[in-house]
């Protein structure tokens, strides 16, 4: 579970504050106000992501290096519409701002980010934030866009209305950041304190209606003129949400992503693999021919490298997901899918966690917190691990590349390998739907809950934002390979070489494998695959490392690449059954742990594990038997 904690040394200051001295600054704003982009601008790459104690809302911390104030810690609060505790997110943000969050000191200053394209509504959040009476700087974000579309606002008048300084910025372009630096520098000098203009009237009754009246009043007094709405967004939506073209384009996008991951990813991955194996051979030359070389190169390096080679494909997939998300398309996809989700008894909001589960089920399960209805939420949690997460990619790619010829299916556009891959994604998706249906009509029956979704305007994803995502993902994957997978391969190598001088079939692992073989033979698996499956209960990628180590330790296949070794050792039926097994099986202790935490009981993860394992076994059995039958 520590996978998301970096080694950065960003500590929240715990000592009592010195009068007038700034230590922590909070970044507040409504959803879609461009807060995260600004946060990245202000802090640079080094940030810490952790959870607030007791809840699964993420806490983003970073030192404000982007404006030369590394002494200040910036806290990025979840995007909120109001101080109403509609969601867990809002509760956390309000607790931090009021200094009631254990472990987080009350911020010394607040940066309130408002989207200047929609200032009238965004100002509604300003009222409760200003009422906190913390030193505040209001940042009108995306002013470059607003002005280019004919919008206007008098910032001086606004500053007078609000009684706090106001600055125009553009987080995406990095414009106006010096105003933030100036504000913080001035705040750091105790001399100029308490010279604030008297604050104008804030609404006394804290309800939406009075906030809105206040916000409307302020925006008209400051001559706010809303920009014309983006022509682009309307036009694009006319196509992307079109009755016919919308769903069709959605499918085209999905297919294109997988095709590119294969056609571009495979050569990259091969080249990367050659470098890794070459590196192993190079180092091996200095290790002599004894057990040390066998351990370091054939055992550990082979195992780790066989997982690491999938880094290019995983980064490519995340690049695409990043483009779809940053451009605003994902919200449209949720809209297209809502009717369908409703049909299977899930909330349209479940679509976003399910989609992010394509990356990893752990953050996806945390994201189900936005679903207000508990039964809906549990159903979503239980089906999430069926979605094809990136940990399944290594074994999928390995088996598909080894067993499925890349024949063209639709001319040069789509290859058989990409089709097989999409088939596996579909299989996981269908399993999730079927299970959801089953749960919602039995143990988790509930009336449907509302679907309220804001559609952001389309934006061009920035290279910076995408690079940051890839960096995060790449770091996480490499780290997992360097820890869990490294440990697993070390243990495996040792077990494969004990007792000393035993051949592989006579080693501890060989005997264990042969002992379980009768149970998995009907699935078309041999004992090595069996060991792979057992070892991958920790994490799915481990199987590839395990197979790399086992085939590397076996004299018969030692000289072969892993793909060739598998072709040599596995039938087509067994290979396809293995894919089906991994599509269904719950091979991830991190996910089980998070399900336990989110549902607060061992009952649900136990049920989930048992259900998915049985389904995987039966699915693999059926696949192998079917293929045996067809090929007879």
């Amino acid at each position, binding site marked *: 579970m520590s996978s998301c904690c970096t080694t950065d040394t960003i500590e929240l200051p715990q000592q009592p504050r010195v009068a007038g001295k700034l230590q922590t600054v909070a970044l507040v704003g409504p959803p879609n106000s461009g807060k995260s982009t600004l946060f990245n601008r202000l802090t640079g790459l080094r940030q810490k992501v952790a959870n607030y104690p007791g809840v699964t809302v993420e806490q983003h911390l970073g030192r404000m290096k982007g404006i030369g104030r590394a002494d200040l810690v910036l806290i990025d609060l979840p995007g909120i519409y109001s101080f109403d505790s509609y969601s867990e997110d809002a509760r956390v943000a309000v607790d931090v701002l009021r200094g009631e969050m254990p472990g987080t000191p009350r911020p010394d200053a607040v940066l309130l980010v408002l989207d200047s394209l929609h200032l009238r509504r965004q100002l509604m959040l300003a009222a409760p934030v200003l009422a906190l009476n913390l030193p505040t700087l209001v940042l009108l974000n995306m002013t470059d866009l607003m002005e280019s579309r004919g919008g206007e606002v008098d910032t001086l008048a606004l500053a007078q209305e609000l009684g706090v300084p106001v600055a125009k910025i553009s987080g995406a372009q990095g414009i106006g950041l010096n105003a933030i630096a100036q504000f913080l520098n001035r705040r750091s000098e105790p001399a100029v304190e308490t010279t604030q203009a008297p604050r104008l009237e804030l609404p006394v009754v804290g309800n939406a209606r009075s906030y809105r009246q206040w916000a409307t009043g302020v925006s008209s007094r400051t001559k706010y003129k809303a920009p014309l709405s983006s022509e682009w*967004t309307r036009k694009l939506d006319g196509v992307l949400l079109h009755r016919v073209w919308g769903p069709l384009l959605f499918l085209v996008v999905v297919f294109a992503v997988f095709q590119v991951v294969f056609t571009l990813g495979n050569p990259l991955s091969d080249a990367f693999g050659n470098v890794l194996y070459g590196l192993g051979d190079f180092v091996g030359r200095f290790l002599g021919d004894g057990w040390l070389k066998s351990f370091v190169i054939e055992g550990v390096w082979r195992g780790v490298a066989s997982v690491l080679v999938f880094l290019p494909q995983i980064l490519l997939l995340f690049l695409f997901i990043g483009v779809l998300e940053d451009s605003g398309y994902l919200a449209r996809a949720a809209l297209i899918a809502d009717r369908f989700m409703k049909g299977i008894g899930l909330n349209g909001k479940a679509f976003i966690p399910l989609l992010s589960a394509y990356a990893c089920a752990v953050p996806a399960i945390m994201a189900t917190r936005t679903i207000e209805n508990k039964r809906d939420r549990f159903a979503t949690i239980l089906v999430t691990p069926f979605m094809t997460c990136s940990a399944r990619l290594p074994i999928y790619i390995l088996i598909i590349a080894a067993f499925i010829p890349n024949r063209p299916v639709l001319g040069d556009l789509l290859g058989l390998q990409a089709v097989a891959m999409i088939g596996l994604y579909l299989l996981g998706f269908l399993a999730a739907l079927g299970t959801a249906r089953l749960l919602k009509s039995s143990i988790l029956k509930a009336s449907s809950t509302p679907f309220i979704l804001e*559609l952001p305007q389309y934006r061009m994803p920035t290279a910076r934002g995408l690079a940051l995502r890839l960096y995060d993902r790449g770091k996480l994957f490499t780290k997992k390979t360097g820890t869990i997978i490294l440990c697993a391969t070390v243990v495996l190598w040792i077990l494969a070489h004990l007792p000393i001088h035993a051949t592989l079939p006579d080693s501890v692992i060989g005997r264990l494998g042969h002992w379980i073989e009768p149970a998995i033979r009907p699935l078309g698996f041999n004992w090595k695959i069996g060991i792979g499956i057992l070892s991958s209960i920790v994490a799915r990628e481990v199987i590839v490392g395990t197979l790399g180590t086992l085939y590397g330790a076996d004299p018969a296949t030692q000289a072969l690449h892993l793909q060739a070794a598998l072709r040599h050792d596995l039938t087509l039926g067994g290979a396809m059954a293995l894919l089906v097994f991994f599509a269904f099986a719950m091979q991830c202790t991190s996910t089980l742990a998070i399900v336990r935490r989110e549902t607060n009981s061992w009952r649900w993860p136990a049920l989930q594990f048992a259900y998915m394992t049985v389904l995987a076994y039966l699915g693999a059995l059926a696949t192998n038997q079917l293929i045996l039958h067809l090929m007879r």
Partner: protein
Amino acid sequence: MRAFWSYLGYDGAWTAQTLRALSELAVGKVAVVEHLDLPDAMQHHLMHMGFTPEARVMVVRRAPAGDPTVYAIDGFEIALRRETAKSILVRQTEGA
């Protein structure tokens, strides 16, 4: 009966302003939010998203499957299912 009519906005003579559910509005129509009739938490949430009385709302488009529908309010586009939109009462403005 009288209470019922006044609830609908009928004030003794039918004017151009009659109350309707937001879900009944056709795409492209503009109306003014009058009243929300939803559970408290959801109502507050929607109001903070812009669905406050007197706010102008426009029906932008329906999702490919016909539901949910995208509404523009305060320059934002917000999608709601029919079952939610039918509890938002609006006053249709003349000529819209």
